């Protein structure tokens, strides 16, 4: 269990995830139409957007990234999902904060887990118990 101060840090970090239109939003009743259209537009259609400054790095895939890729492809070969469903889930259904805030394969594995729960291949309780078990095995890091 996180300490109270850790919990406060977590809440403060969560508050920082407010979608970056650079004005804090909190369930407003009035949404200007252009903003509404922007919210409703599929997240992955970023062509024409102003790009955030990014550092170009020559970098190999990390082991977790390769494992994520293979896991998601095997789920495809088994007929559990298809590539378009994966894109829909990993590029849109994650929501704007995770889309911009997670690494590319972080979104893949997030959406694979969500899909398995949505389709009742695993229960959410099983997933929670499994994550807790693995965390305990690694000393709760």
């Amino acid at each position: 269990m996180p300490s109270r101060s850790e919990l406060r840090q977590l809440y403060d970090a969560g508050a920082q995830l407010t979608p970056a239109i650079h004005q804090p939003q909190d369930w407003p009743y009035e949404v200007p139409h252009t903003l509404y259209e922007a919210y409703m537009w599929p997240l992955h259609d970023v062509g024409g957007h102003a790009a955030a400054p990014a550092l170009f790095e020559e970098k190999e895939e990390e082991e977790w990234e390769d494992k994520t890729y293979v896991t998601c492809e095997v789920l495809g070969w088994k007929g559990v999902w298809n590539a378009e469903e994966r894109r829909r889930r990993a590029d849109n259904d994650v929501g704007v904060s995770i889309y911009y805030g997670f690494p590319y394969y972080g979104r893949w594995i997030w959406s694979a887990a969500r899909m398995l729960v949505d389709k009742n291949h695993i229960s959410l309780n099983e997933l929670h118990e499994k994550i807790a078990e693995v965390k305990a095995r690694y000393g709760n890091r």
Partner: protein
Amino acid sequence: METAETKTVETPGTKAPWEGTGVTLPARFKIGDRVRVRELPAIFYSRTQMYVRGVSGTVVRLNYPDLTPEDEAWNRYNAPQEQYYIVRFCQKDLWEEYPFQNDTLQSEYPESALEPATD
């Protein structure tokens, strides 16, 4: 208790389960036709970019018939399969400030994303 490890996933048949099983619609456009990208809503999912909607281009290639992304993304394998087209646009038509007159951009669309161009 059934766990992820014991859960058996149905073995796919001879055909990949994500392949369409519905009718294949005949192609409406041919190479050289002028087409306009329809201004449909994109609520929940689409792969038709915002910046091409309402813009006209030329069909330069007929690819294959397949499910639309909107159907495949929700596993609607019985939906009709549509012809996919490569459409060529002038960059100037897409981005007013684009500096080069002759540059083009090609992208791929299912038939239901397109209509005959009137301009």
